[in-house]
């Protein structure tokens, strides 16, 4: 039995990163994410890792990509304004197929918006912030403990699929101090990038014919033995640029299907009290906590409510949401923005379900009572 501790979301992301094997952090502080660099500036040297505060977000995210190239598990963290600046480097990691964990502690926006206040308005930025066809993985934890476990999972998926993974928290979860009992580190499943078993002269970083859809990538111990090229240009198996139609097409498609084709491994969601529900709430991240309380209070009042909560928010749980559209009559989509995942829910349910909303972009959390009031209104 582990000991009860008091930690906040930012500290938990930091500790989980270390437990997952992250040994390189680069960033530039910004409210409400600043406790992450604050914590890691102390912890990274203690575990033999590297902590660098760069001159800005662009340089720090590029450095995190570079460290990943050099075999380190690396992370950067910021909030909306900083994440906007990091998009170029995130796209580079997509194209180079490098593992990278990006934490976005969401605050109000656009621009500098509400520095100290909560929002969930960067969901679409996570999905489409960087240009070009690409797939992204993003997780949105609800609770403190889940912030820890989802950070571990984010690193594992980044390593396994050689891809950037977002952790989407927010100003409330970041600064929420509460009781947590962390899992024993020996019980954690930690995944490291597959190592090349071929001699260095036979290794190519994108040789899918030989190695499968996610080729091995040297870790920091092996990096100096393997010389290989990577670039932001579309590439062939060697990592050098190509404009060959077939090669580019296959590369573009594989970068997406290496994620969508493994959706069973990547997806994560919760059905809460859905079995006999008359009404389904769709909520994620910290806002799901409000929805959970609303569902419990509704049931006490005789309303059979349930909640569907995606934990992996990208890729979007299309199949599950489509099923809900077919099997239930009414749904309330609630998010701390003016409607972003709402588009995805509407797309997936194809008009099969009556959708209402509880949306709010005011810098304060949506309260359980607001969701409860909406339930009473639509039933």
């Amino acid at each position: 039995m582990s000991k009860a501790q008091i930690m906040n979301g930012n500290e938990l992301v930091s500790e989980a990163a270390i437990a997952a094997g992250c040994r390189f952090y680069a960033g530039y502080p910004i409210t409400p994410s600043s406790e992450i660099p604050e914590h890691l500036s102390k912890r990274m040297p203690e575990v033999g890792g590297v902590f660098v505060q760069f001159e800005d977000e662009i340089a720090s995210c590029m450095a995190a990509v570079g460290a990943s190239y050099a075999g380190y598990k690396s992370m950067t963290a910021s909030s909306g304004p900083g994440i906007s600046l990091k998009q170029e480097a995130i796209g580079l990691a997509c194209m180079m197929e490098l593992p990278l964990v990006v934490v976005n502690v969401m605050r109000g926006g656009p621009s500098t918006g509400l520095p100290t206040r909560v929002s969930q308005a960067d969901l679409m930025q996570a999905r489409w912030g960087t240009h070009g066809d690409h797939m992204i993985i993003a997780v949105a934890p609800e609770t403190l403990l889940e912030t820890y476990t989802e950070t571990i999972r984010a690193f594992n998926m980044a390593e396994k699929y050689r891809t950037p993974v977002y952790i989407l928290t927010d100003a409330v979860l970041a600064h929420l101090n509460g009781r947590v009992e962390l899992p024993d580190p020996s019980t954690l499943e930690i995944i490291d990038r597959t190592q090349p078993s071929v001699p260095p002269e036979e290794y190519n970083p994108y040789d899918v014919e030989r190695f499968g859809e996610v080729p091995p990538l040297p870790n920091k111990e092996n990096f100096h033995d393997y010389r290989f090229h990577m670039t932001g240009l579309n590439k062939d198996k060697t990592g050098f640029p190509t404009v060959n139609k077939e090669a580019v097409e296959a590369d573009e498609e594989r970068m997406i299907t290496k994620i969508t084709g493994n959706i069973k491994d990547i997806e994560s969601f919760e059905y809460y009290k859905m079995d006999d529900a008359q009404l389904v709430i769709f909520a994620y991240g910290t806002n799901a906590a409000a929805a959970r309380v609303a569902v419990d209070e509704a049931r006490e009042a005789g309303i059979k409510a349930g909640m569907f909560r995606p934990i992996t928010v990208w890729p979007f749980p299309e199949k599950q949401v489509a099923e809900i559209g077919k099997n239930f009559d009414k749904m309330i989509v609630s998010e701390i923005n003016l409607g972003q995942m709402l588009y995805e829910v509407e797309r997936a349910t194809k008009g099969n379900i009556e959708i209402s909303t509880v949306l709010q972009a005011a810098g304060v959390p949506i309260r359980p009572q607001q969701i409860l009031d909406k339930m009473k209104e639509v039933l």
Partner: protein
Amino acid sequence: MAFHYELRFAGIGGQGNMLAGAIIAEAAIFFENKYATQVPTYTSQVRGGPTKADIIISDEPIYFAESTHINFFLALDQRTYNLYKGDTLDGAIVLVDSGLVEVPDEDRAKWDVYEYPIIRTAKYEVGNVITANILSVGMTGELTQIMSLDNIFKAVEKRVPPAFLELNEKAFKMGVDIAKKLKAEKGK
């Protein structure tokens, strides 16, 4: 019915209300084996902006951590009193700094109001204005009776730098004594 108690400490940045809230939550978790959360809300200003700490203590895991049904409300500033009093339950205990907050009559009718010059007392009687938050913690402990005062003080000890422990112990005990006196004046 499982134990569930919601508090809000409101004031302006720099008064130490966030730390006071953290101490209450830590006492509940470490020394009373309960679930507790503390959520700070503040502005971009380092000092001088309206702030609040919401604290929830419960026998059960807490999901939604903003205080929406407040049993105890502390305010050390008029603007934040007005801004954040809205979630306070009828019959709740309300403690304000009498030198800084004027409580309207309609609020007195709803709540069990205690008034004391907390900041002035910390400055002139304890001897250092920075102890105002620990004085508040002592008063909160005595007025609410939600935890043993010993356990709350253990949380103070855990947080306060050793060089300032004696001073803060003085503030804590003074807070408890003042609260006892205020209760006695009300016949409680």
